[in-house]
Structure formats: C-alpha cells, structure tokens
C-alpha cells in the first residue's frame, strides 16, 4: 500500500477521534437548544469551569483564595487535605454544576422568557464572560494538569496490529479511545433518558411545544433547570476529556468555538447530527491540513471547519439533520 495513503488513513483516524471530542461539546449545545431554544454560547466556558472546579476540589484549593488574600491580607491557599479521590471530586463538581444550572435559570433566563432567540444568544455570551471571570477568580488562572486516572499515551495494540498489516504503526492516543467510548455511552444514556423516563418525556414535550407542555402540567422551570444541569454534566465530561488531553487552561473555553461549525453542519436540533457533524469536521480538517495545508501555509484547522460549514449551509440552511426551517409571515 502506498505510504501516503497509509498516512492519510492514520490522519483521518485521528481526525475521527478529535471529531468525537468536538461532538462531546456540541452535545451540550443541542440539549439546551432543543429544550429551550437558547443557543448556549457559554457551553465551552462551562466545560472550562467544570474542569477547573474538578481540579480545584481534587487539590483541595480554597475557592476565591486570591481575592480573599487581596482583601484581607491573609495567606490562605489550600484546605487541610491535598488530594481528594477523583470520584468524590467528580460528584461534588456535578453538584456545583447543578447549582449553577439552578442559578442561571433563576437569575437570568426566567426573566428572558419569550425574548427573541438572538437576544438569548447574546445573553449567553454575557454569561460566558461572567462565568470565565468567576472561574478565574475562584481558582486562579494558571495552567493545571487534570488527572482522574484515565489511560494516556500511545495504544500499543493498535500500533502493533497496524504495523503487521501495513508495515507502519498508527499512533492512536488511549485517551481518544476512552473519549470515544465515553461519548458513545453518554449519547446512549441521553437518548435512553429522553425516551424512557418521565422527566425525559417532559423534556421532549417542552422541546416540541412550550405552551402545550405547560397546559398538560409540565413545569417549564423544572425542565429547564434539568436541561441546564444535563448540559453542565456534559460540559464536565467534555472538560475532563479535553482537560486530560491538553491541560486545564483558558483555551479550553475556545473548544466551544470549534463546536459551533459542528452544530451548523449537523443541525442545531439533532443529537445524531452533533455526532455526525463532529466526525465530518474532525476528519475533514485533519485531511485538509494534511493534503492542502502545507501548500498554503498550514494551521488551516483554525478556519476550515467554519468555511466548510458556511459553504454547506448555503445549500442546506438547516444543516444535515436539523428540522426544516419553515418561515411564515
């Protein structure tokens, strides 16, 4: 088999894995958008916030320690313990994300019911800034490593198998494989939750028609808090994966920007769309960078996803799996 083709295969395989990671972030967007029509720009910052909270709890840091030190002139940094079991820390972080969901609903979006979607979108941009500031203020803004015990490094089995097949071992990160499995479980879990539980049914009812759902006695408030909590949970999962991969730092919030073209491609309202869109973008940008990138100066992954989504949308404005946009006067 020609060498270039083997390389291309490795690149697309890695692209697929990255695509899964994009899809993880995109999932959170879809959840909130379906249930409340809010396009939540803050999803990426939520992932950052969740990851920082997780690291903070694991290391036993005192929240807002910098601010407290600045105001009172004290020197507090750590609580008496220095490491908390990962599972316990994750549970605590889930609790924080649920509290956050409740707050967001109570303080912000309760007052914005019935506003235009674009106003809601801008409100989430404001929320993203707010949350970013809070996250930095709470835990400090230096780069952290996140370790919850996920396997990392090259997967030797794949390396060996592909070496036997093609005479060239593929480099696939164990973490990416774990992320794919987790993403699959997460999607299956979310679909099962939406289909087979009472709350899930309420969620789908609200997504379908707010007023009809309200009239059969579903509490919109509860469903929205539920959805924001779920999105917070998805953000935590994405934060763990990305945080383990590249460290917990500000750039983590920028993955939200990467998830946007994924969503446009897949359609805002479809969970399978988020996955398929993520895969297409992941493979597409990896292959584009591999084939065309060197010719035009490299680092094309900054914009390729957007241009692909833009060109695609011109032909199909609702994305691959989105509901058809019907406009009435």
């Amino acid at each position, binding site marked *: 088999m020609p060498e270039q083709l083997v390389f291309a295969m490795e690149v697309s395989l890695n692209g697929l894995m990255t695509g899964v990671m994009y899809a993880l972030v995109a999932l959170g967007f879809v959840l909130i958008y379906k249930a409340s029509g809010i*396009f939540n720009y803050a999803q990426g910052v939520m992932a950052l916030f969740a990851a920082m909270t997780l690291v903070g709890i694991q290391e036993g840091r005192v929240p807002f320690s*910098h*601010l407290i030190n*600045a*105001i009172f002139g004290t020197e507090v940094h750590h609580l008496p313990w220095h490491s908390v079991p990962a599972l316990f820390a994750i549970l605590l972080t889930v609790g924080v994300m649920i509290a956050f969901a409740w707050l967001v609903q109570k303080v*912000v979006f309760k*007052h*914005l019911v019935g*506003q235009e*979607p*674009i*106003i809601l*979108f*801008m*409100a989430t*941009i*404001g*929320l*993203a*800034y*707010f*949350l*970013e*500031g*809070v996250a*930095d*203020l709470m835990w400090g*803004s230096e780069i952290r490593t996140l370790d919850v015990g996920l396997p990392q490094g090259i997967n030797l089995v794949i390396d060996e198998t592909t070496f036997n097949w093609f005479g060239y071992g593929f480099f696939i990160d164990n973490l990416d494989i774990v992320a794919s499995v987790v993403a699959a479980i997460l999607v299956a879990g979310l679909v099962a939750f939406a289909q087979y539980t009472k709350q899930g049914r309420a969620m789908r009812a609200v997504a379908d028609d707010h007023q009809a759902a309200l009239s059969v006695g579903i509490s919109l408030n509860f469903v929205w808090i539920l959805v924001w909590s779920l999105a917070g949970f998805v953000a935590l999962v994405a934060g763990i994966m990305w945080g383990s991969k590249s460290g917990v730092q500000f750039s983590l919030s920028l993955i939200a*920007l990467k998830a*946007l*073209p994924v*969503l*446009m491609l897949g359609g805002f309202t479809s969970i399978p769309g988020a996955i398929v869109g993520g895969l297409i973008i992941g493979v597409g940008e990896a292959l584009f960078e591999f084939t065309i990138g060197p010719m*035009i*100066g*490299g*680092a*094309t992954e*900054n*914009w390729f996803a*957007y*241009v692909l*989504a*833009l060109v695609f*949308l*011109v032909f199909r*404005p609702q994305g691959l799996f989105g509901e058809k*946009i019907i*406009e*009435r*006067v």
Partner: protein
Amino acid sequence: MFYREAGDFKTSYSADNQTFPIAFDRWRYYLVLFVAIVVIPLTISDYWANSLLLPFLIYVIAALGLNILTGYCGQVSLGTGGFMAVGAYATYKLMTAFPWMDMVSVTILSGLVTAIVGVLFGLPSLRIKGFYLAVATLAAQFFLVWLFNRVPWFYNYSASGQISAPERSMFGVAVTGPNAEVWVKYLFCLFFVIVLAWIARNLTRGSVGRQWMAIRDMDIAAEIIGVNPLKSKLTAFAISSFFVGVSGALLFSVYLGAVEVGEAFGIQKSFLVLFMIIIGGLGSIFGSFAGAAFMVLLPVLLKIIGVDLLGWPTDIVAHIQLIVVGGLIVFFLIVEPHGLAQLWRLVKEKLRLWPFPH
C-alpha cells in the same frame, strides 16, 4: 423647565425633519461639537488621548458600523475583528505601496476594500439567517485573521510578521508614526467620526434605512411589500464593513502604530464591539457613542478603583472586569434591551416635564 419644546414652532418640512427638532438639543449638539473640535485639541494630554479619547473615537466608528448591520438590518455579525483587520492591512499595503498618497484617501480606500470583502462574506446571509448567520460570520473572522498571519505578502515579508505604520503627513504635520502629535491624531479621528456619524444618521432615517429596518423586523414580510432583500442586506454589509474597515485602519495607523493581527483583531475584538452596541443600544446612533464610551471607560475605571485605590493585583482586577462586563450584558438584556440610548430617552422624557409631575 429649560428642556421643552413649547414655543419652538416649525414652519417648513425640513425644519420639522431635522435630527434635533428641539432647540435645546440642537444647541447642546453644537456645544458638544465646539468642545470636541476646539476645546479638547487645545487642552489634550497624552494620557487622556491614548487611554480614552482615541480608542473611544475609533471604536465609535466600529460600533456605528456594526450597529448598521446588527441594530438596523438585524444581521448579527461576529466578524467585526476580521473586517477591522482587512481595513488595517489595506491601509498598510496602501501606505507602503503609494507613499505619496494622503492619509484621508488611504483610509477611505481601505474602507472601500473592506466593503468589498464584507459584501463577499455577506452573500451567504441571503440563505442563512439568525444565529446560523452569526456563526457563519465567524468563518470570516477566523479565515481573515489566518490569511493575514500566513500570507507574507500582506505584511511585506517582514521578519516579525507585524505591520507598523510609516510616518505620513497631512498639510505638513505628521498624522501617523512616532512623531505625530496627539492633537493631530485626535482631530484626524474626530474628522472621520463626525463625517461617518452624519452619514450613518442620514442613511438610517432615509429610504435605505427604512428598508434595513423592514428586513430586520421580518424579512419575508419586507420582501412581500417590495423591499429587495438582496439589495438591502448587501448594502448593509457593504456600508457596515466600510465603517468597520475605516475603524480598523485608524486603529492600526493612528492609534496603535504597530499591529500583530491575532492579538489586535482576534475574536475578542468582535465581541467587544458587539458588547458596545448591546450596552449602548441596538439600532441607535447615540447608542453607538454611549456604548463605545462605556466599554472604553469601564476598564480604565476598574483599574483606577481596583489597582490604584484598593491595591489589588492586576490579574484579579482583570477577572473582575470580565465578571462586570458579562454581568452588565446580561443585566442590560434583561432590564433594558434597548441599552443606554433608551435610558437617555427616558431621562429626556422626564426632563421635558420637570419640575412638574404631569
């Protein structure tokens, strides 16, 4: 008491249609112009110009541009930073390729180049709507920044990848470069602000502006009553990009002097200008001024309070600034979706009756 319209009779249509129909407003406007043109250049100091006045004037132009597109025509754009970069790099190329050209022509030409690029990226708006479009404009943002970073022709193959403005003069005084004096820079920016604000005001209240607003309020209905969506959306993109391009050109050539594209024209800049028009007021010329003033003042104010008065470290103040900006955006969207401009309108309503309650 003072602020009233009783006794202010109009005897012609043009008098009735003027921008400031109330005499008090008109005189206040002339006073502001007088202070801006005559008083400030005489008293200006380096600190005030560089930390407040110049950025304010330059961002006013960008905010006016984005307000035309988003506030008047309803097309949300997150590509402002990218279009500002187009203006800056067009200025740089023009300044270095045609050293004899005067700065006003250079700036206007850069605006025109940006307008063409803006129309190109505005074409998809005919098919894509709402925040699908907002995300699509991010394509412009990232692609343009990447382009200026990676294609050496744009920065004249300089080793650092930066562009820096050479010295250019107008009427014998330096406008750009290290030797330019502050009052010259200030007057140069002020000239563009006054002219462009005047154009924006008159465009938005004429037939073009009414078409934009019809498209904003409901594009299908507008199409049915005879507004050409292609024409009005693309003119909005073109004129908005022209403004934004001029603003980018001034930011680079007059204010910063040397620019690295990812740092000066990144996505943060797009959001900054968007925040200006949200806080100032969507669909309002005054709002663009108020929003730009607010967003330029806020960091300076927070720095004075946090760092100088309370003695906190700068990074904490920077984080608090994020919180305050984000919180204010949400607050304004909840309490006053029409921004500072609406607050100003309410104050004026109150003033008209003052001191009588009814």
